[in-house]
């Protein structure tokens, strides 16, 4: 197996606030890593560092063989990494001025110079795959939240990423729509997609994750197989967190 992500002694500050502390983490190709923790623990910041949406201050980060230096790294490394790493956001961030299909076609055409014909075919294939092939010509605002998030996943997949980052992909959804998004993610995991997922969906974490990571105040406090972390947490802070989120 090859490392897709390698973090060594990574530190990140927001002003004086130390949000990531000495992070050591490697993610292997094909692995599904779920990151859990309280809000403000730094879990979103951690995955946003992977594609350079956040800069870090010290340590080392290598993504799919491209070293991304602290304080923004260089533009070449950033653009190489972003071509290979897709991201799905909590707020979907679809482009409201483009139809669903154009949302998906934009990046392949602009970044990879894919022809319109091929980009169009890819978009249709991906929309069918996430179960909304019939919505291709609508604008995002005419879709439900769950449908919008599935478009966002299709949009990320169109770039044929080697790694997909999910930043709380179901947190902005109405409860009845969470399932349809998790289904798509479950399917991707089954097909072998490498994924780093920040989520509060503990059921999904237990079922789909190869590894669960618990972050507390910017530190990786505990990690392991989901059954071990959920059923037999070693660290008392993990125990306290899990008893709070699993209680209801």
């Amino acid at each position, binding site marked *: 197996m090859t490392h897709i992500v390698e973090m060594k002694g990574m530190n990140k500050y927001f002003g004086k606030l130390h949000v990531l502390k000495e992070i050591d983490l490697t993610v292997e190709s094909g692995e599904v890593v779920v990151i859990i923790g309280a809000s403000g623990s730094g879990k979103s910041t951690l995955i946003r560092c992977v*594609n*350079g*949406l956040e800069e870090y201050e010290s340590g080392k980060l290598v993504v799919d063989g491209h070293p991304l230096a602290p304080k923004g790294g260089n533009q070449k490394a950033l*653009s190489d990494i*972003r*071509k290979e*790493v*897709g*991201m799905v*956001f909590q*707020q979907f*961030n*679809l*482009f*409201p*001025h483009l139809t669903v299909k154009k949302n998906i076609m*934009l*990046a392949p055409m*602009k*970044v990879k110079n894919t022809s319109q014909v091929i980009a169009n075919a890819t978009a249709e294939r991906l929309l069918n795959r996430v179960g909304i092939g019939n919505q291709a010509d609508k*604008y995002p*605002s005419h879709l439900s939240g769950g449908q919008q998030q599935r478009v966002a996943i299709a*949009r*990320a997949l169109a*770039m044929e990423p080697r790694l997909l*980052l999910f930043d709380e992909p179901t947190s902005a959804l109405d409860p009845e729509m969470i399932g349809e998004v998790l289904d798509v993610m479950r399917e991707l995991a089954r097909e072998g997609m490498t994924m780093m997922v920040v989520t509060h969906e503990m059921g999904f974490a237990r079922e789909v994750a190869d590894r669960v990571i618990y972050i507390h105040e910017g530190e990786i406090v505990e990690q392991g197989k989901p059954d071990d972390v959920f059923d037999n947490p070693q660290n008392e802070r993990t125990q306290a967190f899990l008893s709070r989120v699993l209680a209801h």
Partner: protein
Amino acid sequence: MEFQFQFDWQAAIDSIPFLLKGIPYTLMISFGGLAIGFLLGILFGLLSINKKWFLRWPATAYIEIFRGTPILVQVLFIFYGLPDLIGGPIDPLTAGIAAIALNSGAYISEVVRGGVQSIDKGQTEAGLSLGLSRTQTFWSIIWPQAFRRMIPPLGNQAIVSIKDTSLFSVIGVGELVRQGQVYIANTFTAFEVYFVVAVLYLAITLSLSLILRLIERRGLASV
């Protein structure tokens, strides 16, 4: 002595052909100036939100200077002041267009800045995360959305600038108000002539409002 005033419709109607000669100048100064002002507005509006202080600072200075001084002073400065500097006269039409361009450019800069800043940060992040460069992200994702939001304030500025051209009678450019003054000098029918002048301005601004409303409706239909 009893004073009676009668609105002389015939005088009003007679003045129309002469006044209409001012319309091409009014339109040329307005829309010529606004077209350049729009380009200046995009340029300085974007510079004013640049991270680099040496780009941001001159843009902010330009905006503050041309928003903070009267357009009448600006056009007098350009027409009477600048020739001393460049060593040759400036024709009134050029001076008028330049004044509208520089003045509306400052206001449009603020419209551009506001429009761009109103677009959610998540849009930029989505573009970057897909591998688009900052430039690609801006022009294919941020700008089209920002531009749509800019249409109403741009229309507002266009109407203000059209009316501002009336001040340029002071530099002798033959626009609407100037034509009116010249006509009145011979006929002494001030009330009737200025009434027609006002109606002609209203005709221009109302047509523009109508066109803008149509554009707005079409632009918003998809979002």
